[in-house]
């Protein structure tokens, strides 16, 4: 999987479609525009397992605006709004 990562372009998880799979490259809270401070958002994401190298898969989307999304992070499932997911850069 890591081989293909080099050729795939990086994107925020907040833009990913249902069925997307990838690996977290880094966190960039500043770009998310969340109501939380950058540090707070980043801390919370880490506490829910969103760390560099974790495998993610978008499992489900909500009805309105395809939001929020349910993301498989390694072996747990986390629901998160797309706005906050913009801070998670995947490839």
């Amino acid at each position, binding site marked *: 999987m890591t081989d293909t990562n080099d050729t795939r372009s990086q994107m925020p998880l907040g833009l990913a479609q249902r069925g997307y799979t990838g690996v977290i490259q880094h966190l960039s809270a500043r770009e998310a525009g969340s109501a939380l401070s950058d540090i707070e958002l980043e801390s919370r994401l880490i*506490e829910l397992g969103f760390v560099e190298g974790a495998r993610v898969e978008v499992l489900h989307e909500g009805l309105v605006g395809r*939001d929020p999304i*349910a993301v498989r992070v390694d072996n747990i499932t986390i629901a998160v709004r797309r706005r906050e997911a913009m801070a998670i850069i995947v490839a």
Partner: protein
Amino acid sequence: MELPLLHLALVGTPNSGKTSLFNALTGSRQKVANYPGVTVERKEGFFVTPLGRQVSVVDLPGTYSLRGRSPDEEITRDFVLGKASGETMPDLVLCVADATNLRLTIRLLLELKRTGRPMILVLNMFDIATRRGINVDVERLAKELDVPVVTSIAVRKGGTADLLQLTDEISSKLAAELRENSWRALSVSELRATQREADRIIADCVSLPASPDTLTARIDAIVLHPVGGLIVLALILFVMFQAVFAWAQPLMELLNSGFDALGELVHNTLPAGLLQSFLQNGVISGVGSVIVFLPQIIIIFLFILLLEDFGYMARAAFLMDRIMGGAGLHGRAFIPLLSSFACAIPGIMATRVIDNKRDRLTTILIAPLMTCSARIPVYTLIISAFIPARDVWGFINLQGLVMFGLYATGIASALLVSFVIKFFMLRDYAPAPFMLELPDYKVPQLKSIAIGIYTRAKMFLQRAGTTIFSMMVLIWFLASFPQPPAGATEPAIDFSLAAIIGKALEPLLAPVGFNWQIAVALIPGMAAREVAVAALGTVYAIEGGKEAAEQIGQVLATKWSLATALSMLAWYIFAPQCASTLAVIRRETGSWAWMAVTFTYMLLLAYAASLVTYNVAVALGAG
């Protein structure tokens, strides 16, 4: 020699099975209260170890870290650090992990270790992990973490035997286990480093099966489908509503007739007089009118606890988040608001699932606007007396339509109020982002649910019961004093403070079309909405004789104008006429001010709605 009481604290992430372990250890020997000054639930239980040591164990609020980002999490942090006011520092911390999902707990444990408290890592739900082919090298894990590790199956009899034994072993050498506290709030990079360290340890000690749990994935394919999921949710709600209204009915009637019989008994045994009146009208009928709601509360909590245990609640919040977000509500507010259709009291109690303070407060403030079952007797009485039972457009029953309209108005105004709160009152408060773990589905455990229902029911009876009792004493006093002078021919109530207040209020209520009899009925109706029906009956019985009281609907139809009736309906959509709801709001928000805010805004809305309704109706010729 008597050993001193050992203090344990349970710490773990949400969904770690902490509560089921707590229930397994303590059974029904639990005490539920609030931490002083905050509305965080404090659950303490007691048990005895195999060596006969008395143990007190506190189930701390679930948390992913010790940063303390919410009042709940602050409690957990302060408690472990021994800084929580009035609390004993725990002798031993049990860090509870879901054995099928160690990642987040191991990170939490690495942080907890810095506090220097003696600790045990409890790998709960070990049977599920084994069945799924997850292999944990317990010895190696204990060595890597430098913390004793024990497996447990909280839901099985004897599943905590190893834990109890280890507790005995460790508690005999606690002093040796104690380390210095080096904890301080972690920076983002330290947080990341501990997660990396956790992941490394897990990679060394845990082998995952080739194929992950597919049952959860298969259920979620339906339950979280954008459209299918909402249909499933609607079906669950439909069953829940049916249960609350239909299943509870026979029990409620039984309780009702039980209290009536008890009142009758008191009436016949005691000589007529103040004591008889106080016991029958004040204590028995007053407290009875609240206890009647116990079956509904039990059924609501049965559903809530079942769905929570199963793992569905987080899914419901996921489905509803954006839909409710438009009105400034959090996805998690959905279930509490839903419960409020039965009764606002369990609804407001259920807001504890919302961890953000602002979101929780908004939900508490609007929950009483949901049409609770206590409004139904009032609505039914007035609708059947004033609204003709004819069909409109050939197939819709007009009475049913009015009833639906009353429900719809309640919901619409709740959303509107939430919107207003969002924009004007709590604007500077950062809205909580929706970030929630969707746990794997689990079979609900009957014992856990039974204990949960038992503690809720007990809390309802104790707390709401005492408030209602004191309110009822007050109302009985108002309606009974001063006593009529000897030889008076008018009914006793005419001389009472209640009548004096009713008549004093009449000028205020005249613009909305209420007469003094309604004003009098509204006073006992403060205790519980449906009491107003009985009170109206009493007041009009005095004028029209006993016969009239039995057919209160027909009396109203002759005494009130249609405009007054409609105004009364509008009043009841909004009026804060329920002392126990206000008492619960005061308790759950921990503040008299928020109770006053709720009372005032609802009263103003009620008055405005009635004023508009009455005047429009009069202008249209219904006066």
